[in-house]
């Protein structure tokens, strides 16, 4: 890969291996790179251990979403989902275990897949993207068993509430829809941009990040990032962050969020921004915390750069992995 390609690279997705020793990252050229965290964090780490141990072309389009199951790495490309066995990838064997395409209505352009989420309750995979619908695939047999229709523009993000058997989706149309997985019906539709406290008409109305934790939901995008109480369906706190947020996550008693802007923001539930930690990419697409392994517990952040920043401590950037 040439210098110019590296200069224009964006990292869109990351996923840690089940053992927690490896990080997979997908970029805008459809490549997936595998980094060894144990080598990069080891005592004799050098320049070379920050480079990928394996990089392969997985899809034609950008890899917008990566997800790990117990045995497989799921990657989403242009209208297709591929599974790669972790065990084989670690041995540097690149061969897709399977590839599935949701049933799209014929279209000039193949719709992209922006988000995937696993529902462990019935071992199914929710897939959302360019065709405005959420497709539910049974991971047992690879059959797409239902389609959740309702969004009027493409879907940015998905979240699964396992206990309530609900799937949440946020889209370009500015709505957060809550679906009952058993009936495949939309049970709620929250149009965040209509709430004055969150709305930012100068940016737009899309919802690009969505996370849930028991009764709480985080969502943001065009509107400000806000914390919602799901039972009362009302925003409890709004975070005063200037850029549009692309990914947010609950971590311990904090909220970590990234998006436009060269930093990872640490927020408190009450709505205060506690800290903004600078990092390499100018805008950040993805953030991930490795909870699979205690000795490699790191926060990794990727965005509009070929660097993936690694935080061994939440308060400063330790080093960068490079494509």
């Amino acid at each position, binding site marked *: 890969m040439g210098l110019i390609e*590296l200069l224009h690279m964006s990292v869109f997705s990351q996923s840690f291996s089940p053992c927690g020793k490896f990080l997979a990252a997908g970029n805008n050229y459809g490549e997936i790179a595998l980094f060894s965290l144990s080598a990069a964090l080891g005592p004799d780490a050098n320049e070379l251990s920050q480079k990928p141990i394996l990089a392969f072309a997985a899809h034609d389009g950008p890899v*917008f979403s990566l997800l790990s199951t117990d045995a497989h790495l799921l990657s989403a490309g242009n209208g297709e989902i591929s599974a790669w066995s972790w065990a084989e990838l670690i041995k540097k064997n690149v061969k897709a275990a399977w590839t599935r395409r949701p049933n799209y209505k014929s279209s000039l352009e193949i719709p992209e897949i922006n988000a995937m989420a696993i529902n462990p309750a019935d071992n199914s995979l929710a897939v959302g993207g*360019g065709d405005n619908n959420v497709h539910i695939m049974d991971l047992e047999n690879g059959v797409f068993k239902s389609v959740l229709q309702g969004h009027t523009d493409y879907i940015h993000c998905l979240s699964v509430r396992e206990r309530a058997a609900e799937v949440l989706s946020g889209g370009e149309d500015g709505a957060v829809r809550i679906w009952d997985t058993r009936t495949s019906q939309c049970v709620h539709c929250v149009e965040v941009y209509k709430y004055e406290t969150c709305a930012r008409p100068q940016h737009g*109305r*899309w919802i690009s990040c969505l996370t849930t934790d028991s009764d709480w939901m985080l969502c943001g995008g065009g509107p400000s990032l806000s914390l919602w109480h799901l039972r009362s369906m009302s925003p409890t706190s709004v975070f005063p962050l200037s850029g549009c947020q692309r990914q947010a996550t609950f971590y311990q008693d904090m909220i970590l969020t990234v998006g436009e802007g060269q930093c990872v923001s640490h927020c408190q539930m009450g709505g205060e921004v506690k800290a903004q930690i600078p990092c390499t990419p100018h805008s950040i*697409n993805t953030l991930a915390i490795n909870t699979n392994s205690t000795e490699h517990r790191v926060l990794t952040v990727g965005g509009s750069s070929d660097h993936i920043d690694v935080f061994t401590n939440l308060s400063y950037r330790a080093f960068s992995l490079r494509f």
Partner: protein
Amino acid sequence: MSSEALKKRKGKVIRTEGGTPEVKRGRGEGDPQELELERRDPEQDYQQYKQTCESLTTLMGEIQELKAGGAKEGSTDLEKRRLQSCIHIMNLKKLNRLAHIRLKKGRDQTHDAKQKVDVLHLQLQNLLYEVMHLQKEISKCLEFKSKHEEIDLVSEAEFYKEAPEEISRPLLTKEGPHQLTLARLDWELEQRKRLAEKYRESQTMKEKIQKSIEVKKEHLSSLQPGLNAIMQASLPVQQYLSMPFEQTQKQTEVARHLPPALYVLFVQAKAYGHACDKSLSVSISGDVDEAKALSKPPEDSQDDESDSDAEEEQEKTKRRRPTTGCQLDDKRREMLKRHPLSLCLDLKCKDGSVLHLYFYHLINLNILTVKTKVSPGTDLSTAVSAGELLNSETLLNCLYSNDQGQETPNPANRYQFDKVGIVTFADYVKELGHPYVWVQDLGGLHFPGEAPQGVRVGSALSASHMEATMKLLRGRVQSRLALHKQFTSLEHSIVPISSESQHLFPAKVISRLARWTTIAHQDYMDLAFTRHVSSAGLAKETDLFFMAVVERGTARLQAAVVLNPRYPEVSPLFSLSLSWKGEHSGSTDDNLRAMESEVNVFKSELQGPRPGHQLLTNQLARLCVCLDVYLETDGDDNSVEGPREFPREKMCLRTVRGPNRLKPFKYNHPQGFFSHR
């Protein structure tokens, strides 16, 4: 009382018994005793002694018993026993004496034996000494070095094969190595004698031949004037028939005075021109006489110079100290001296433009330098931004990557420079020409560099580089001339698009190129939105830098362009900054970043017909299209307040896509719609 006395006597007797040896020793010896001694057995004597002692003890015991029993002194029993005791004592005495005699005899015998051993030992010592001496002599003999060992003799097998019978005498020599060596030495002598004879013969032969050569030479030199006259007479005929024999002959005559590197270049360029490239012409210019003078006595003159230099230096330092600087200047000039002859290569392109290359040889540095000039075939209108394009200083920069021709490729020059205080060769490049590595290669000069490779020198090296370099040179000139033409129209705000590339762009493009200017390297580095390029090391001083401004309505897009000298092989690199509803740049706006990659990364579609001279203009055209898309798809459809500044005219399947909400910048040709990558 009497018993006590007896006891005393008894004690005395016992004492005398114990003291017998001393008594015995005191006694002399007689012959009869010795005779008796020989007859007696010592073992028997010992037994006898034991018996006597035993019986004496029993007798004593009996006497004591008798006395205790009250026997009177002088009773028969008692007397009888006393008598017996006395006999026994006598007996003991005798035995004692015999023992003494035996001892003495033993001593005498030992002494005799010892004497004998001493004599023998002395004898042994003498013999050993003699042996040692002899051994020393032997080793001395063995170590003796004969003169003949230094003579390199023919091997034994060869000797037997070649030497005549009377010298080799195989019967004799096969047995004794000494005889063999002697024979071999004889043979050596014989052979040497023969060789000496041969040498003398050859000498006389040589003299004879030399004499005949002299004669022939005289004859030939007498022919010269006649030939000259013929040549002179034939000149008009040659001219009339336009056969440049004379000219090429003259050129080769002059070429003989070229320094080796230029000569290699001359021959190879000429050969390449003949074989592959008729448009390449080679000529030599400069002062031939000076070159002749230089090539005749090269060593002497150098010595003289250095001597006189040293003398001058001494005189100067004595007389006028302040002029050392001036003198250093002289030395520098001497160091950087060019050979009086130079080589001129003219490379003609199809469109009639000519690239002139002047090659010089720096005598003392032993490197080649080149100066260039382009004479365009057609009259070029003067475009301001194109000034740098055909600048002879930078025209051939980085013909091969990283070959900037600023520093001398000969590592030895570093030390020469230190001597005369030259900091860098770059200061003299303008005057002397560029010492590009490929120039050294063409001249067959090889200097060990950082990267080891198969080392070839001389003509082989030159030949291996000739074709590739000539092609590169031609490509460079053509690309520069093409750019020159394009710049002229760019400065008039027209982006020229050839018919081959028409399908890459929609028919209607509203954004227009407003300005095209050249900027300095430093200005480029100072721009905020090019920081990522410069920090990635993609903007070097040797590159050319331009600023393009594309405008549509109130929107104004600035594009800073890095043009590598190796364009179009290395594509130009754009960085964007848009001022519309605030300032945006590639680092703050993902869509601008996508536009950058649209022109920088997906450039292969824009290459146009080979060798891709239209790349830059196509990139600029695509930039205009992308700006149209950017402006027309901006903003949410429903939130329109009043008329939009940029009504949507481009056909798009979707206006945004993916997590970072990119706009559709990719144009699909026959259908005419825009889609995402």
